[in-house]
């Protein structure tokens, strides 16, 4: 695939606007709260779209199309089950505590609710994780652009990192949020033509269903396995995900989804930047509306691509070294097949935008947690606000440089990165139990939370060490202690690891809390749901009222699950 001058012009226009936003915001960024929390001045719809996009990094976009090709429509479980309920819960029940407590970050909430050690544990692991995941996605993007357009790996990495650095350095979180909103529209307008053309080509929805049936049968599944979401989840072996309904609803839909959407500061930071408590509550729920529909933009292209493999003159996926199809190329293959010069530039711009704002999301979350939760809390408290603003800017540079280092580390030692991601998965898995107890059970104590988190992490590691997915070799995939259970797929194992970690953390936190002294009620006002006043101000428009919007969004998610059952 080669780009022409028109494609270049389109990419150039985008980069120009991105830099211009940073420049325009520079004078408006005067205090540390401007830099780290956008001065809590972002309207609900902007915070909502940013919330939705912050999760939509390039890896996610490319990965969702890949999963669409591999698992079919069941990939939408990651949206309709694995995102919407958690987003609505965050908006209705958790944002009042995050926003109302005036905490400036998720770790800081833990400090206010529990104690310093719980905050430190969360802040340190989170800061490290953001840098690593930003590096990994940078590495993936460098590889993709090299493969697709022949751009040198080093050039991609330094150029995109440099642009992200410029705009975050100048405008802080506001720059990040504005670019996420821009990215949202670029993804919509960049990928919609792909879906429209692909659907026309494959013969509309009936044509797609017929092609997918061929693919399913060939892989040894029932004919509708790739085009239904729940029908074949009675047994894990009958569906391409290799996970049964319990794993999907408990592991993905409850533990992993709530743990990610409700506690990951990268996301929550967007809602914390909202201009009022009611806007902060609306933001995740507004974000859930496009989230309902995005499977059509990011999963459908993958499904069309795999459907076309069974057509004369269709698509053929390159093979991986182990002989399996390289599903990761679903989105690039579709771009190359349908988009002529001009629209191709727009499609590539959409990919780059999602990559850059994914990285900016990590950097803005990193600099905030570093400055407020590590530097101010442990290295230098009581300095001037100006000082923390400068530290935030330095942390931005450091965060970008560390991400670049992580990208090169990923390129050199892929297995180290796999290992790190695994460890983080263990650390993250129990988190939601801590927040759930902390926010809704006032008896929970700091010691309980801390010990619960640690044992939850150990529980996750033990479960991983004792179980293994089918056909895997003991090691990074599990079973490194000895094997007591074999799962039908890696995903099934992951979901179970999460359930085990969460349950361990919950039980241990409750037990230790009951043995330690609770904090008096008056210290917990605004931090625990039952002790917090609920007199919410009226939202600007009646249709933005969360109590109206939430059931509508949940109802729509439910309906989609039924329609595509």
């Amino acid at each position: 695939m080669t780009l022409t001058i028109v494609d270049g012009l389109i990419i150039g226009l985008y980069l120009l606007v991105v830099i211009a936003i940073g420049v325009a915001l520079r004078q408006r960024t005067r205090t540390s709260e401007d830099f780290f929390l956008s001065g809590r001045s972002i309207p609900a719809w902007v915070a909502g779209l940013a919330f939705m996009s912050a999760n939509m990094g390039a890896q996610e976009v490319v990965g969702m199309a890949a999963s669409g090709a591999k698992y079919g429509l069941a990939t939408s479980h990651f949206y309709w089950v694995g995102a919407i309920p958690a987003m609505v819960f965050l908006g209705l029940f958790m944002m009042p505590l995050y926003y109302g407590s005036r905490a400036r970050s998720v770790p800081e909430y833990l400090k206010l609710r529990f104690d310093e050690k719980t905050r430190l544990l969360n802040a340190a692991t989170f800061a490290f994780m953001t840098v690593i995941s930003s590096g990994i996605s940078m590495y993936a993007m460098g590889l993709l652009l090299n493969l697709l357009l022949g751009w040198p790996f080093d050039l991609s990495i330094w150029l995109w990192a440099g642009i992200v650095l410029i705009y975050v350095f100048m405008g802080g979180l506001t720059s990040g949020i504005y670019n996420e909103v821009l990215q949202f529209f670029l993804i919509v307008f960049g990928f919609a033509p792909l879906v429209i053309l692909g659907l026309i080509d494959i013969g509309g929805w009936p044509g797609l269903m017929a092609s997918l049936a061929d693919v399913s049968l060939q892989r040894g599944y029932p004919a509708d396995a790739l085009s239904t979401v729940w029908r074949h989840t009675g047994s894990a072996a009958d569906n391409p995900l290799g996970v049964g309904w319990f794993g999907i609803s408990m592991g993905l839909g409850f533990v992993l989804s709530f743990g990610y959407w409700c506690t990951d500061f990268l996301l929550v930071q967007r809602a914390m930047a909202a201009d009022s408590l009611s806007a902060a509550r609306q933001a995740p729920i507004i974000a859930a509306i496009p989230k309902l529909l995005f499977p059509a933009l990011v999963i459908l292209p993958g499904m069309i691509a795999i459907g076309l493999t069974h057509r004369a003159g269709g698509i053929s996926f390159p093979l991986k070294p182990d002989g399996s199809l390289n599903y990761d190329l679903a989105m690039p293959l579709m771009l190359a097949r349908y988009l002529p010069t001009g629209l191709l530039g727009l499609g590539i711009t959409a990919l780059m935008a999602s990559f850059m704002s994914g990285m900016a999301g990590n950097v803005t979350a990193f600099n905030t947690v570093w400055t407020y939760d590590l530097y101010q809390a442990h290295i230098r408290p009581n300095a001037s606000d100006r000082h923390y603003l400068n530290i935030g800017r330095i942390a931005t540079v450091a965060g970008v440089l560390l991400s670049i280092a992580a990208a090169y580390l990923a390129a050199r030692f892929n297995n180290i990165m796999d290992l790190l991601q695994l460890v983080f998965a263990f650390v993250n898995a129990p988190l939601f139990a801590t927040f759930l107890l902390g926010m809704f059970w006032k008896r929970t104590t700091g010691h309980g939370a801390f010990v619960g988190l640690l044992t939850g992490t150990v529980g996750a590691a033990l479960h991983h060490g004792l179980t293994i997915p089918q056909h895997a070799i003991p090691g990074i995939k599990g079973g490194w202690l000895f094997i007591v259970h074999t799962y039908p797929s890696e995903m099934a194992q992951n979901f179970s690891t999460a359930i085990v970690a969460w349950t361990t953390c919950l039980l241990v936190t409750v037990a230790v809390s009951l043995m330690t002294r609770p904090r008096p009620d008056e210290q917990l006002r605004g931090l625990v749901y039952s002790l917090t006043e609920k007199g919410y101000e009226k939202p600007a428009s009646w249709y933005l009222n969360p109590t109206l919007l939430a059931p509508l969004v949940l109802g729509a998610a439910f309906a989609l699950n039924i329609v595509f059952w």
Partner: protein
Amino acid sequence: MGLDIRLPIGVLFTALGFVLLVYGAISDPSIYARSLGINVNLAWGCVLLVFGIAMLLASRRRSVK
């Protein structure tokens, strides 16, 4: 935050729509074989232009108020 986000969105999409529209009008029709014979640059350029102008108008209306 002072800067209305609809302004940069409007500027970007108006410019992108304009570029695609013009290119769609002057480009060699043979490049549209891959897009099923549809001049998608022209068509989608119009969509982007309309969206971009709508965003610009929305940002202007608010700043006048």
